[in-house]
Structures are given as structure tokens and as C-alpha cells.
């Protein structure tokens, strides 16, 4: 069942995750569906608190229970449901078959260990390599991510490297075991624009080299436009629109996506007011009933307040969840 191209690499079906807190239950994910093939970059775009990171943490199995609880759904990776795996088996997947790049490299690298020790650790653990061959391998990967084939970086502590170098080191670490799936959780948010482009290109070239699937999480539509093959937009724990890059940027069909694209400032819009989306992003503790976007939606109708719109395929895999598609639209 595994390995064939017809089966998706990662298939998240109806995943529902909540957190128990003293002030109530935070419903972080309310039934999301994502599907990622090998050699494809799927971007997950959303604002803070929309559930992007919870999605990636669920796939990695890094959420602690309690407070988190998986209420339902499946995460099928290479034909196995990760949620039903025993912790022991899951640990073999984590870091080996699924690699992860975090947002702030400075925070997720261990400051007390040298970069080399942190990269070789996974190799020794997963492939039972000797230390010497692991060091050789680590050097190869540092070279691959553009840090050069010298031992200086290998023997540095994280604080001795600049932000871009740390992010490269982290990428080397996450691809060291040739993972089939790479999760990149806002990998460029903490970096400067010129570095950002370099890191995006690096991720793209590594994807081609190892034919990985990449789940790319971001809040920046510009970055997504640069890198993604397909994009899913998440709002308040639900996917509101999924489409290929071209469909999404040229022909969005969900009002939230459309408004997000309209609100991006641009030199061409000088002198005009920006189309701001009124209101704020809802908390995970009290998500509005019905369509969760209805309090901010300019097109809202009575039905939007009562029922959650189902996700419907509008052809070519362009899916969206809105009652008003084809009936009403925002003029730009």
C-alpha cells in the first residue's frame, strides 16, 4: 500500500483536537482535511490562533495529553494511522520519516550542545551509525544546506551562528534522515527578506533532491505564492478553501481568502485605503456558531449564522466551505 504514487503521502481526515483549560475547552481543530503527495509542497495559511501549529504538532505527535485531546479523525502517513500507533513505533517515525523545521531556530536548537552533536544524534539513533560516519554524514548535509564542508560549524554552539545559519543548521538536522515528509512551521518568519528567499529556495531544492512532501505552514501569503504547489486556508480550526496556487491567487472563491488577498498592501494601491477585514480573529475558546467567519463577512446571510457550511469541491480539486459561492461576491 505504501510507496505508490496514487496514494497520498499524508492524509489528514476530519482531525479534531481540543485543549482543556481552566477557563474552558479550546477547540483548536474542528475537523480538518489535508492531503499531501510526495514531491509536493502543500501550504497551510492562516492567522495566529487558527490551528496551524496544532496541525503540525498533531502530525509529529508532540502534543501532550492532557491538556490536548484528539476527539476524532485520522492522520494517515504512508498507509498507517499515526494516531493509533504505539508511542514506541511513533518515535521511530518522528525525526526519521517526518522531519520538522521550527519557526525560531534559536529557540529550538539546544544551546548546550554543539550543532554537530545535535545533527549526529538523530543519525546515531535512527540508523545506528557509528559516531565517525555520522559526523561525515553531518558534514555532507551542512554542505548541502550551504554552510560549507568545514568542521567549524559542526563544532559551534547555536549562539555562535547567525539567524540564517541557525535555520540552515536546523534544516540540515531535519533532512539528515531523508524524511519522506518535511514539516516547515513558519521557517522564514524570524528571518530577513533576503535570507527568507534563500531559505525558500533551499527548501524547494531539497524537496526535489529527496522527493519529499513538504507541509509548509505560514501566515504570509507572499511566501506561499512563492513556494506552494497547493494551498489550504485555515480559519478558526477549519479549512475554508483549498486550491492550487494558481487557482487560489487568481480566482479565490471563499470571501475570507478574497479579503485577505485584497488587504495586502502594494505600491499599486498607493493613495487608496486598504480593504481591511473588520473585527478580530476569534479565540479558540469561543468560536462563533455557524460559519465561524460570519461576524466578519460582508456577504453574511441568515443561514451562515445557523449552520456550518460543508466543504464542496468546485472542480479540479478547488474546495471551499461557504454557502454563498456562486450567489454573492465581493467586488474588488
Amino acid at each position, binding site marked *: 500500500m505504501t510507496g505508490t504514487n496514487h496514494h497520498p503521502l499524508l492524509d489528514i481526515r476530519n482531525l479534531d483536537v481540543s485543549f482543556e483549560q481552566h477557563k474552558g475547552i479550546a477547540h483548536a481543530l474542528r475537523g480538518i482535511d489535508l492531503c499531501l503527495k510526495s514531491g509536493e509542497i502543500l501550504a497551510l495559511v492562516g*492567522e495566529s490562533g487558527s490551528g496551524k501549529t496544532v496541525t503540525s504538532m498533531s502530525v509529529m505527535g508532540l502534543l501532550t495529553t492532557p491538556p490536548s485531546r484528539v476527539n476524532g479523525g485520522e492522520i494517515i502517513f504512508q498507509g498507517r494511522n499515526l494516531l493509533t500507533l504505539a508511542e514506541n513505533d511513533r518515535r521511530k517515525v518522528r525525526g526519521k520519516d517526518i522531519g520538522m523545521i521550527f519557526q525560531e531556530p534559536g529557540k529550538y536548537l539546544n544551546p548546550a550542545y554543539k550543532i554537530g552533536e545535535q545533527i549526529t544524534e538523530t543519525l546515531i539513533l535512527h540508523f545506528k551509525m557509528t559516531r565517525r560516519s555520522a559526523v561525515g554524514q553531518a558534514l555532507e548535509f551542512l554542505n548541502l544546506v550551504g554552510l560549507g564542508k568545514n568542521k567549524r560549524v559542526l563544532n559551534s554552539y547555536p549562539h555562535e551562528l547567525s539567524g540564517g545559519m541557525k535555520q540552515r543548521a536546523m534544516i540540515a538536522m531535519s533532512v539528515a534522515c531523508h524524511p519522506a515528509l518535511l514539516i516547515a512551521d513558519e521557517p522564514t518568519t524570524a528571518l530577513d527578506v533576503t535570507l527568507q528567499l534563500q531559505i525558500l529556495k533551499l527548501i524547494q531544492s531539497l524537496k526535489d533532491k529527496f522527493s519529499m512532501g513538504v507541509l509548509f505552514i505560514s501566515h504570509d*501569503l507572499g511566501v506561499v505564492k512563492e513556494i506552494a504547489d497547493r494551498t489550504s486556508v485555515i480559519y478558526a480550526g477549519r479549512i475554508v478553501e483549498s486550491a492550487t496556487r494558481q487557482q487560489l491567487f487568481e480566482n479565490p472563491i471563499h470571501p475570507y481568502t478574497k479579503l485577505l488577498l485584497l488587504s495586502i498592501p502594494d505600491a499599486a494601491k498607493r493613495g487608496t485605503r486598504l480593504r481591511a477585514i473588520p473585527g*478580530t480573529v476569534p479565540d479558540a475558546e469561543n468560536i462563533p456558531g455557524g460559519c465561524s467567519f460570519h461576524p466578519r463577512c460582508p456577504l453574511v446571510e441568515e443561514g451562515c449564522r445557523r449552520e456550518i457550511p460543508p466543504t464542496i469541491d468546485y472542480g479540479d480539486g478547488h474546495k471551499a466551505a461557504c454557502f454563498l459561492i456562486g450567489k454573492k461576491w465581493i467586488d474588488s
Partner: protein
Amino acid sequence: MDRFIEIKNLVKLFYGQGFLNRQQKVLRAVDQVSFGIDSNTVFGLVGESGCGKTSLVRALLYLDPPTSGEVWFDGTLLGRLSSRNLRSFRKRMQIVFQDPNSALNPKMRIENSLAEGLVNRKYPIRKRTRRIKQLLDLVGIANAHRSRFPHEFSGGQKQRIVIARALCMEPDFLILDEPVSNLDVSIQAQIINLLLDLKEELALTYLFISHDLNLVAYFSDCIGVMYQGRLMELGSTEEIMQHPCHPYTLKLFSSIPGKQVVAAQDDDGQPQVSISGRSAAFVESCSFSDMCPIGTQSCCEARPSLNNIRPGHQVACFNV
């Protein structure tokens, strides 16, 4: 002196720690920066982190007095003011910080945060109350929420309160240090619209710092591109966006994500070398020379100064 704010040859040096090696370790954070801002316009300052934007702003406000150079504010030379006069002068220039979460005291009700400047200026309590109501109206926060604590507000609302606080002394010059980069995408446009409205309503002048080039191009009238403490290019937004000349500006613009511009061929996986300290010996060369695609020998031997290439467009490069 007809420009509202005029900065001439501003230099800010930081010295290494310990008095024994004082002479050896000098960091040129801001190096011979000159520009002017007209009244009721927006000057956008662009540059990567660590290029000296914040040092420039602090030197400009005399929070960290500059090592040398002049800052003229509405016809007054700030360096010549006594510290007492400077304090009262600071009413006219205020700053909005990047992160609204850390800019507000979590233990103070927002009305007290807003009143602090007024208390210092010995406003009577009734006038204070009225002013706070006015300010909250201005930024779109309900007056009923005035006695709340910062944690009861969302990020966008907090940034509105920070803006209200900056406006409380009726300044005419506002420095916006990445005011929206910590906010959600859908909230950013709200704050930008608010800032544009306030600029019209209160005839404000802005110095806008950002690394988001799309936003700077939308928001500002003039743009200055900064690299390692020096201004590389300066001009009106139209000029810079349509005819960027400096190789560094070109590099910056080609890295705007989503623009699908073919980037200069210099970044196929090569990491940038981090420069942790610019020594005094560095003065005599162009700071971009080691990464410049069109650099020549002369770039390493002398430093280019800002030259007019068109009216209202200055570039610091020998090869343009």
C-alpha cells in the same frame, strides 16, 4: 532650513566593553547618515535587521545622543538644547514600538498608561479624563474599556492603545518602528488605515521603519534604504520603486516574496557572512562591496557618498 526634520552626517558609535580595549572595538552603528523629512509626509526606512535602523531612531530622538552630526527638528538644533529643554521638546516626537504586548505595562490599566505623560506635564485630572476619552475615540477603542488591563485586549487593539499613548502629548512627529509586523494579516490593514487617517487628521509626520517592502512602498512618500549603518539609496517612492539603482536595493526588491522576479544570481545556497562588528578600518570601503555583483576595485578602496542621479533620487554607488 525649510524641511521639517533634517539629519546631517549623523554618526553613532558603540564602544567595546571594558575601558582597556576601548579603542579597539568600535561598532559603527550609524555612519554618516543624512536625510530630510518634509512636514506631513511619510519617510520609509528599509533595511535588514542589524543594519542600524533602531540605533538611528534612538540617536535621532536623542535617547542615545549621537556621536556626531546634527538633528534639526522644525528649525531647532536638538544637540544644542539643554537636557531640560530637550525633555519638553520630546513632547513633539513620539515613538510606536513593534511589539504592543511588551510596550504596555501589564499591571497598569490602560487609562493609567495613557495618562502617564499627562500626569508628568501636570494636567488637572478633569482635563486628563477628557483627553483620554478623546484619544480612545480617535483610535477606535470604546471609552467603556478604559479601565481594562492590556491582557483583556487583542493584539490589534493593544497596538491601537500604543498609538493612542504616543498621540497623547499631541506630537507632530511620530516614529513607527515596525508597527504592524507582530499583527495578524487581517488586522494589519486596519492599523495601516488608522495611521493614514490620523496623519491626515492631525497633520502628523511619520518616520516609518519596516522590513516589509510592499508595505513601505504603499505607505511612504520617500524611501531610504539602509545597509550596515549607511544609507545606500534615497528618493521618492515612485523613483525608487520604478528605477531602483543601487545593487543592494535591487537585491532587496528581488527578494520580495510573491513577486516572482528572477533574483540576482548570487544566492544559490551561499549563506551570508554575518558581520558582528564593523571595525574602524571598514570606513574606507563600500560596506556592500564584498557581496556586490557589480563591485570593482575602487569599491574596496573608497567609500561612495550619496550622489544625485536624478532630481530627488540619490544613490551611494560608484557604478551606477
